[in-house]
């Protein structure tokens, strides 16, 4: 009796599955049309849930309003490549017109990008690239250049040189690797040495504990370098607690609310800020052009003219960075406010 019921279920499930498969095939054969009253649908998938993405979303919405298309963003709750893949596949199934991705892990996401492109969905990357994939273009910070900018700032803060320790979520992440390489390149030939870099797997309490340990284990440390956005506040908290403010320089990336507070008080010496608003705005702008013009070269040419950014080798578009210090923080905040952003 029991086996009998099992068989019925099995047959029913198989039948349903077959119907599902058949349906899937039929829909793929219908051509995608973006003309007429159907609005262009664009999705931007971030590499995590950091508040760093807030201004990106502001820029994304602004562009969508101006162009009259539909744009949404999705933030994976963790930085797991598998989770990001799952999210992208959801939109693949929905057959959106264009996807922008901040790639968590190029080996996992790269092949998926190729698959998307083959199925007719236009893909660009932003913030973090998968350069080997078939993605059309990359918009974001050239992280090697950003690392170099940090290195230049370090030279100004430490003219005599000294030991530097780095702190990051995962030093094998492509953006971390490039920033570190750029930093090392810029300080080459000086007395500044990046001794080691510590991972915290994006756990803020661990990020702070790492700094505490370094401050105790290496009394001769001259500067702490926070490579991800939440590292800055945790470094400042640990240095403050150890009574070393002013003695150990703090150089970090991005401008989380606490980073801004510390900058205003002069407790963080400099931060390298990217332009996440531009990531969102320009990604939607470029994807929209590619989708509506149907010609990548023409889309890139128009984009170059309208945005003022240069399309580099392998279609990489560097939006650049800025160095913010206690001296220019107020002016920077005023500029953000004008765009409708609290912090980046």
């Amino acid at each position, binding site marked *: 009796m029991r086996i009998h019921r099992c068989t019925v279920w099995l047959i029913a499930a198989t039948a349903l599955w077959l119907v599902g498969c058949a349906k899937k095939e039929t829909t793929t054969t219908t051509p995608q049309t973006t003309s007429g009253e159907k609005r262009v649908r664009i999705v931007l998938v971030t590499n995590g*849930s*950091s*508040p760093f*993405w*807030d201004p990106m979303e502001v820029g994304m919405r602004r562009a969508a309003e101006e162009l009259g298309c539909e744009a949404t963003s999705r*933030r994976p*709750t*963790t930085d797991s490549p598998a989770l990001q893949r799952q999210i992208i596949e959801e939109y693949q199934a929905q057959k959106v017109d264009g996807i922008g991705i901040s790639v968590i892990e190029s080996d996992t996401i790269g092949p998926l990008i190729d698959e998307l492109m083959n199925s007719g969905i236009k893909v660009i990357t932003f913030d973090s690239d998968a350069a080997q994939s078939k993605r059309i273009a990359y918009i974001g910070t050239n992280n090697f250049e950003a690392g170099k900018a940090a290195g230049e700032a370090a030279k100004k803060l430490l003219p005599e040189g000294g030991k530097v320790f780095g702190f990051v979520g995962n*030093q094998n992440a492509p953006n971390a690797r490039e920033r570190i390489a750029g930093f090392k390149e810029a300080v080459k030939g000086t007395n500044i040495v990046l*001794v*080691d*870099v*510590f*991972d915290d797997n*994006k*756990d*803020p*309490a661990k990020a*702070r*504990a*790492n700094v*505490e*340990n*370094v*401050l*105790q*284990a*290496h*009394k001769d440390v001259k500067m702490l370098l926070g490579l991800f956005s*939440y590292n800055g*506040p*945790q470094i400042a*908290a640990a240095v403050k*607690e*150890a009574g070393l403010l002013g003695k150990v320089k703090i150089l970090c990336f991005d401008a*989380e*609310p*606490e980073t801004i*507070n510390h900058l205003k008080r002069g407790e963080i010496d400099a931060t390298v800020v990217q332009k996440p608003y531009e990531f969102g705005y320009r990604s939607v702008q470029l994807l929209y052009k590619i989708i509506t013009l149907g010609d990548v070269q023409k889309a890139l040419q128009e984009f170059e003219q309208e945005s003022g950014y240069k399309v580099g080798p392998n279609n990489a578009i560097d939006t650049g960075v800025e160095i913010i210090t206690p001296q220019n923080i107020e002016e920077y905040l005023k500029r953000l406010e004008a765009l409708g952003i609290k912090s980046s």
Partner: protein
Amino acid sequence: MLHREIARLIRTREFGVVVVLVLLVLFISSTERGEAFLGPISLQNLSRQIALLGVFAIGQAVVIIAGGIDLSVGTLIGFTGVLCTWLLARAGWSLGASVLAVLAFSAGVGILHALLINRFRLLPFIVTLGSLFIFLSAGQLMTNNVPIPVSPQDSPYSEAFQFLGNGKIGNVPVPVYILLAVLVAVSVLMHFTVVGRRIYALGNNEEATRLSGISVLRTQMIAYGLCSLLAGLAGILYASYQRQGIPGSGLSYELKAIAAAVVSGCSLSGGQGTVIGAVIGAALLNVILSGISFVIQQGASNWEGTVVGSILLATAILNRLQQQWLARKR
């Protein structure tokens, strides 16, 4: 007499961990930067890390002893941290009111867990796994993923709040006092009260406990309630330590708590172990984590998992050998 006491100590399940812990500290302090490791500030930092983990590892130990498991403590820590800073900085509550509200909420979460487990005959694993996801997302929804700082301009209680996780009384970090108070209170509860005996009994044999007329539900409510309450307390302390409520923090801390409890003798099948063991386990984990930065000069982060995993395994093997040796002696 003294000889008998020592013999008794050697027989305890926690003995193996203490041996490993002592050997580890001796090893780290013998290395090049060992002196700095035993320096006052390093010890303060280390003891604070142990206290932060110990507080909720104790709660996890109680639930494990009661034959259950609580996977939600990690994200509950993140969420309660956000809740506490939100009440302080956004709702303008006083520190006392915020802390009490967070603790009451946390205890309520644990009681709800017990109710779901008991009334619907659900596995603790699935109930608390559900909570794990809910609290992660709840914190993100509440803050739109932006950390909530508690600076003086955000709340008049900013300094008092920061004191909880960062402050020191007589050179000893405040969380250490909190850990000691929790440890004493929960140890007394577990070893000198009827409630404690019921928790052990429940972990040993739920059916026998029920048949002997003990309310399983009430005992579970106390165990899970205590665990979530302590996670809430840890959430407040972590938020203070990080100086802001950060959604998504505390992720996977439940594994640390389980490791701390289990490495020193809590059996995952329940009924065995002690809460002080969980604190010793927390000490072991944090000595390893801090020690790595002092011993390994290059690429310390990449070594972390290997070192932690190997030492945990070695400790477990040592524990097992000790138990076998004792069984043969009997």
